[in-house]
């Protein structure tokens, strides 16, 4: 495991000067993950904040090959590039190692892009798919996605008299990806940078497809102070809202177990998108969300052999 000093000496592949918001989780996700690389990399990027804000004409922040395709296509586009690379390598026309990575937000991954992602995983392309999950369509102005947690306000789940924010629970994409039986799947957090970089390294240096799901706090959409991004990421883990685990060749392993799990209220209180839930008539929703988190955690402990 590299230490911070060593990581800081790595070639920066996503350079500064991009126009992601101050305090955006996405650029932290990308920089931590790419710092695990020793080989050149081809970056694919689905439509989203990351793509838009890092490639504003006439600039780019990417110190690597980069391809953006329309919203739902990143995994399929990388599939083609990787397949051709593998063929050229087999034919002896390329001898060096090249890594392939696809970045997508939750909209481009959980929703519109899941078909092309699932296809790429099933075919077994040697690439890493990274979802920076900020739990809504932030690029178009905070509309709900299937990663938006229950109770959260978004512009298409407006909290009011008729509905108290989003009424459904979020999709468990990491488990769906694990069900593809690919070599490596992990859920990670920018707060536990060493865990994340280690997971990224495993993902890149495992033969076959790998998937990383990283929670990416968004202060614009979640309504918190922009200096608190890492704090919010940390609370998500400590409340068991975002457990850290990995599935390596089918074996589930828990990577972090809080000594005492914090109540989900603490995480929700820190974000404006949940403020309507603290009205007396909505308090029961917080209770139900807590029960759901605890239930899922218990299940995870069993799958990971902790119980």
């Amino acid at each position, binding site marked *: 495991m590299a230490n911070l000093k060593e990581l800081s000496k790595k070639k920066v592949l996503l350079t500064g000067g991009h126009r992601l918001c101050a305090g955006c989780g996405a650029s932290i996700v990308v920089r931590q993950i790419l710092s695990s690389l020793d080989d050149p990399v081809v970056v694919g990027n689905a439509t989203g904040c990351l793509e838009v804000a890092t490639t504003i004409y006439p600039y780019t922040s990417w110190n690597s090959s980069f391809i953006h*395709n329309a*919203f739902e296509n990143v995994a399929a586009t990388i599939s083609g590039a990787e397949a051709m690379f593998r063929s050229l390598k087999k034919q002896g026309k390329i001898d060096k190692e090249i890594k392939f990575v696809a970045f997508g937000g939750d*909209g481009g991954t959980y929703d*519109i892009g*899941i078909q092309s992602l699932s296809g790429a995983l099933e075919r077994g392309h040697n690439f890493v798919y990274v979802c920076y999950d900020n739990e809504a369509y932030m690029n178009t102005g905070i*509309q709900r996605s299937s990663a938006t947690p229950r109770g959260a306000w978004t*512009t298409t789940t*407006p909290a009011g*008299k*008729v509905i108290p924010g989003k009424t459904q629970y979020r999709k468990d994409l990491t488990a769906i990806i694990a069900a593809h039986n690919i070599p490596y799947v992990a859920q990670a957090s920018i707060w536990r940078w060493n865990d994340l970089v280690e997971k990224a390294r495993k993902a890149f240096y495992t033969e076959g497809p790998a998937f990383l799901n990283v929670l990416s706090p968004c202060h614009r959409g979640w309504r918190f102070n922009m200096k608190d991004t890492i704090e919010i990421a940390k609370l998500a883990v400590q409340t068991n809202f975002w457990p850290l685990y990995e599935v390596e060749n089918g074996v589930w392993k828990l990577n972090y177990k809080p000594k005492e799990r914090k109540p989900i209220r603490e995480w929700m209180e820190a974000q404006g998108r949940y403020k309507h839930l603290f009205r007396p008539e909505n308090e029961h929703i917080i209770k139900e969300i807590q029960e759901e988190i605890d239930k899922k955690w218990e299940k995870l402990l069993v799958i990971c052999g902790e119980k």
Partner: protein
Amino acid sequence: MNKLKRNVELLQGNEACVKGAILSGVRFFAGYPITPSSEIAEGMARLLPQIGGKFVQMEDEIASIAAVIGASIAGFKSLTATSGPGFSLKQENLGFAIISEIPCVIVNAQRGGPSTGLPTKPSQGDMMQARWGTHGDHSIIALAPSTVNEVLTLTIKAVNFSEKYRTPVILLLDEVIAHMREKVEIPAPEEVEVINRKKPTVPPEEYFPFKPDQNGIPPMANFGEGYRYHITGLIHNQKGLPTSNPQEIDSFIRRINNKIQENVKDIIIYEKYFLDDAKIALIACGSVARAAERTVKLAREEGLKVGLLKLLTIWPFPSEEVNRLAQQVDLIIVPEMNLGQMVLEVERASRGNCEVVSYSRVDGELINPIEILGKIQEEIKK
């Protein structure tokens, strides 16, 4: 009239679309976020649940139009909204709505293309995609407002046409019309002409879901009303069952085209500005028509006999009107925010009766009145 509850509001184009849709009876919206149309979804998410309607955000663009088709067949007037990239994805289901004659409205707030293109800039690059984007022989209705007030009135028209002709209708906005704010007079609900799909008058055992009435449009039973109903994307006979009988195929394809082509007088909407004595005509739509209107004023100040034909219906194309105009004027200039799509139809319709010139801009900027005037002066000098 004073007792009517009429409001004047400052609205964004997308908001006016929401208001118009609700006034015309739309109670179902399925959509997917995309700039520059997302405010339509947001407005629907806020308002529909309050009036017994249903908003659903879908997982992608294809799903959005598919859900709209499903809701329409269940009896709800339905609408979805998107922009270029989403409109491309929706083409398959657009064809399905055409062949299965399911009323629905697709709003396309045009942005620069192809592909992701220019998400925050206006364009008229989808004129031909609206006409021919989905495969196979078909007719289509497409309307294009040029003011926020027209967004409201044409949204109502679009919903009405879709119900009347049992067909999908496309409302072509562009980024500027979608996002700019203008004064809108919102009619009282009782003032709004609302057309509902024609229901069957025969008992279920005598019902043929695709048997046309005298106007070529089959009365439509909704799912759940007791009528047996088979819907397929295959070419079908009057029962709705797939057919490979050449006669049935031929009459079906001709009917779904003719039901629109034979009603162009009802469907085609346009406005004339200073055309009575014009020797030069501008033909424009959408936000370009606003600039063209101003150009006419500037040209008249210089003593030039210039007029404007503003098209509100793009498809079916107002060929007859353009042909009449071509016989009157010496020159038609077609300014548009594409490389010259509508001008092709203008050329065809004018049949060599006058000169037709394109003025195009594809840099993501609006066409302004001065440059159209410049084009007029340049053509006069030739």
